[in-house]
């Protein structure tokens, strides 16, 4: 229904015309303000479930166009962090903002997705009864209002876009098959296709290579590296070979907070990290 995006502060969104001055800059509706290079902020975010602190004053900043890996032992809060960013879980405390101006903690899941955050689940989640083609068609960036869906016709441009996506995720031959009949790795690829179809500014991938063959995971790594700079990507992954292949910066989570941050080698050399995670 309403897709209004709550604003944190008056960051020049009005008609004050201070476009060139240092502080205010004109911001159009639906545009993400990355004037400080950062596309996603988490500040002191805490989440508790029945007394268990899943996130404990977590702070994190992802730059626009960055490809970031998040690793950490089970229960470190990786999936909860994604839930908080995508609106599935409301934080008990803290601030989550998309760009400078969009407060994610007050938005519904669908509004957050429309604002430009795409999410891939740990367990591949696709529309099983729909064909692969229809899966991508529904996901294509564009019309989301329900009444327009009654008389919707997919345009030629959209059909071409779907064909391109099918080629990117290499599922051309499966286009007409119901997604429920795909193999696990194919579903993973389809879900990534669904994400790309939304043309998000920020992709959150929860263990994307689980269940993929080595070849598939190599291809995905190549794809993510190719997207770097155009889209910001956060990958939660256990597969260290995959992390090594794609990561520029790695964040290690432990007990709901950031334990270390740096290149993979820096992180691996960190004593605290060795103790809780890699060393065992």
């Amino acid at each position, binding site marked *: *229904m309403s897709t209004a995006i709550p604003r944190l502060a008056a960051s020049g969104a009005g008609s004050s015309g201070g476009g060139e001055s240092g502080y205010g800059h004109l911001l159009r509706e639906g545009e993400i303000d990355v004037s400080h290079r950062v596309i996603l902020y988490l500040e002191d975010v805490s989440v508790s479930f029945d007394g268990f602190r899943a996130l404990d004053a977590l702070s994190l900043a992802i730059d626009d166009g960055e490809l970031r890996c998040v690793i950490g032992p089970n229960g470190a809060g990786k999936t909860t962090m994604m839930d908080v960013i*995508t609106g*599935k879980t409301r934080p008990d405390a803290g601030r989550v903002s998309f760009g400078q101006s969009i407060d994610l903690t007050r938005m*519904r*899941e*669908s*509004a957050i*997705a*429309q604002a430009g955050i*795409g*999410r891939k*689940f740990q367990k591949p*989640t*696709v*529309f*099983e*009864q*729909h*064909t692969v*083609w*229809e899966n991508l*068609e*529904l*996901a294509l960036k564009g019309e*989301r209002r*329900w*009444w*327009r*869906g*009654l*008389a*919707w*016709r*997919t345009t*030629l441009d959209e*059909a*071409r876009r*779907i*064909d*391109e996506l*099918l*080629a990117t995720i290499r599922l*051309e031959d499966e*286009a*007409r098959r*119901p997604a429920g009949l795909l193999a696990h790795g194919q579903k993973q690829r389809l879900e990534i296709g*669904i994400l790309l179809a*939304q043309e998000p500014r920020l992709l959150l991938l929860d263990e994307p290579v689980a269940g993929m063959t080595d070849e598939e995971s190599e291809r995905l790594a190549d794809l993510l590296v190719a997207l770097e700079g155009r889209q910001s990507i956060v990958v939660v992954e256990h597969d260290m070979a995959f992390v090594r292949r794609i990561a520029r910066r790695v964040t290690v989570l432990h007990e709901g907070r950031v334990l270390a941050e740096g290149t993979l080698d820096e992180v691996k050399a960190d004593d605290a990290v060795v103790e809780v995670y890699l060393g065992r």
Partner: protein
Amino acid sequence: MNAIADLARAPTRRVAPPPTALFSRTGWAIVAAALAVNCVLVPIAALVVPGTSPFAISAYGLTLAGKIMCYALAAVALDLVWGYCGVLSLGHGLFFALGGYAMGMYLMRQIGREGVYQSDLPDFMVFLDWKALPWFWQGSDSFLWALAMIVLVPGTVAFLFGWFAFRSRVKGVYLSIITQALTYAAMLLFFRNDTGFGGNNGFTDFKRILGFPVAAIETRVVLFVATGLALAGGVVACRAVVRSKLGRVVTAIRDAESRVMFTGYDPLPYKLFVWTFSAVLCGIAGALYVPQVGIINPSEMAPANSIEMVIWVAIGGRGTLVGPVAGAAIVNGAKSYFTAAFPEFWLFFLGALFVAVTLFLPRGVAGLFRRRGA
């Protein structure tokens, strides 16, 4: 990468668009044949063919078939929300009854002064010693008003209920139980004389509709034809909804609601639309049912009625739209035979039928005709 290269060479080719036709050619032929039988053959058999001929249709047969078609329309409506949106409503009998009551109010006003007490007020109001029509009966003497109420009352109740239930993300068995409670509460409310709808007797003894005598065979034929048209229209409309992009989103909500949300669709208006649309169709079915059966009372809101609707859909084949038509016809045809021949065994037979279909025909009767899985 070949696909892109191919596209560059043949820019108008679409690789794999989904089928968009509403029905296949055979499907349309079946719809047309059903309409021909409904609008031509049955009226001839009822009005022209002499009663002694084996091809003649009696008033009883006509009313029974009309009644079953009303049930079938309700089943189609239920299938839209259950089969395609995954919302198992155990309260659709409420919407059916509300549509029936909206029509019943008009039929009561059409009685005029011919009631037992020869008053302008409906008999039950005279009996309760009411002196004037309550405010919510104003306008009920107009047929157009009745038509509006048939759509608006079930639609509004469904919209409000759906708004709160879906917004609070109530799902699955919890939602089913709430719908069951809703129809039960409404039944208790309508049982009260003070509610103003005739208490446990409801409305009956109808005389006329639009000035024509309700019991006349010609009126019955018109009602039958109207019911058939409503049923066909309901199936085609539901099919159109299901095949639209909106319908594909609704099916996607059924299968993976979180994926739908994280793809940027807010499920609330989508669910609310099919839910309300379904309730309106159900109300129309109830409105056509009342003049043919000649009575509406709160027992139509009994929880068992709503559950029976679910059985029609399950037996016919959930998520097929046409299957529930067959399901309603099979169950109610059997019911009218059994309750006459072996009245005490009807519920056992219904139970056995349900168990047999669940065990041997998990996709219902429609599954027998399905060529490939969807």
